[in-house]
């Protein structure tokens, strides 16, 4: 053993949470901004809202951090000049571009975004949701985690605001922390899908199939991460990463 400083699994969970919490805080600030605007504007329009979204999305994307997509998606009917509206920007190899969304419901390519997980879940629960990892073929066209938070005024849902994060980048950020524990660790979402793992055979995107894991992750799916605490039959421990809806599976 040459490593001098090792991190306990609990500190790894806490550090993972800190990384993701940074994104949550960013999104929450955007939500506050939008809510303030929407409270003051009785009949909001895409024309007035888009510049506000662009003003926070562009710098976030230009900054070479975790964020690869950012924006606001309006509740259908919210805006008087656009029934369906996505104000979403993406960073790619060719610079930052606005997502070209089909907002005409009669079009063949139109997708009702209210049926997609990143809309459906926060709309139903009223709290933020982490979608993925998944292949986001609507926006980034890549392997992505999408974080969305409801924007609501007076209890009425007006839209969701959020970011896309490429799983590659998340892995680059989190894997060194996990390795520092010296133990085999996998980060999984509430469904048991692997975000990343120290075991090279455990691929991001695969399902971690361990007896009792589905049950152990149930509190994550119910948005009550504080209840996660389990030792599986295999001897592996399951630890929630703060309130990020991700968990560590430690040991094998």
């Amino acid at each position, binding site marked *: 053993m040459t490593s001098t400083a090792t991190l306990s699994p609990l500190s790894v969970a806490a550090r993972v949470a800190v990384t993701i919490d940074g994104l949550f805080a960013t999104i929450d600030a955007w939500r506050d901004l939008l809510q303030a605007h929407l409270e003051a504007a009785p009949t909001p329009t895409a024309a007035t809202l888009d510049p506000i979204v662009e003003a926070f999305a562009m710098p976030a994307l230009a900054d070479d951090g975790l964020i690869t997509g950012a924006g606001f998606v309006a509740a259908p009917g919210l805006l008087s000049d656009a029934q369906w509206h996505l104000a979403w920007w993406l960073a790619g190899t060719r610079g930052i571009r606005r997502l070209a969304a089909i907002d005409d419901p009669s079009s063949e390519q139109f997708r009702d975004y209210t049926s997609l997980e990143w809309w459906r879940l926060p709309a139903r629960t009223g709290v933020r949701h982490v979608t993925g990892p998944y*292949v986001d073929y609507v926006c980034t066209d890549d*392997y992505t985690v999408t974080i969305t938070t409801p924007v609501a005024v007076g209890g009425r849902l007006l839209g969701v605001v959020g970011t896309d994060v490429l799983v590659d980048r998340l892995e680059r950020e989190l894997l060194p922390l996990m390795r520092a524990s010296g133990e085999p660790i996998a980060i999984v979402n509430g469904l048991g899908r692997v975000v990343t793992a120290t075991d090279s055979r455990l691929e991001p995107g695969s399902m971690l199939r361990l007896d009792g894991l589905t049950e152990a992750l149930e509190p994550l799916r119910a948005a009550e991460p504080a209840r996660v605490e389990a030792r599986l039959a295999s001897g592996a421990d399951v630890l929630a990463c703060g309130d990020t809806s991700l968990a560590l599976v430690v040991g094998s």
Partner: protein
Amino acid sequence: MPNATGHQDAARSVVFAPLDGAGRAELVEQRLTDAIVSGVLRDGERLPSESDLSRSLGVALVTARDALEGLRDRGLVRTRRGRDGGSFVTYDRDSAARMLESRVRGHSRIELRDLALHVSAIAGTAAEIAADRASQDDIESLLSIGANADLSTAGGARRALGRFQLEVAAISQSPRLVREEVRLQSEAGPLLWLCLREQEYRDSSAASRTRVIEAIRAVDPPAARAATISQATAALDWLVREKMRLEASADLTRQGVR
């Protein structure tokens, strides 16, 4: 000698072939024709404007205009001027049948077989990997595509088939398979799934969806692959039979038997 690498040079020349001009307008025209003939774009449906079309397809405005003109010349769209104007699909059964015939006969058996093989490779692998990687939520979303499928029309059945295969590719968690699936759907889909014009094949496409879902639920990758491929094979068989039937009747006409 330079010819020793002839095939490589041919591949290179394709890479650097100009993308603009007549070739592109034909591609756009072919894609829209396929969508109209196969029923994905419905009779009377308004097409996007020239500028929207050029933007969404990433081609020059003049290219989109040329493509629409080509469709107009072949009687597949009609243009109305004025406030409620635009280009509208005109689905004339006779002209659509002629179009289908020339499309099927325009490909050799070898090309059709190759197309089906390519689709099988991508969709089959996606289904195989999806069977290992699907969550309970994923299975629910596959079921809902089946439940919402409109099997009463060819277009409805093809939309359901396309959405299902795209979702399966997404469940495989592979961005490359998803991109290839999207590309293949626009390239091969209109031709390969022509059998969906017949109710029998629309029903069997639903049955095949059920088999794929069952295999994914049972975490049985080989069965998911096999069920996906057998559907593509059945579509190919129909296509080749149809091609031979059309050719045989053309031969008879030529020989003056009919």
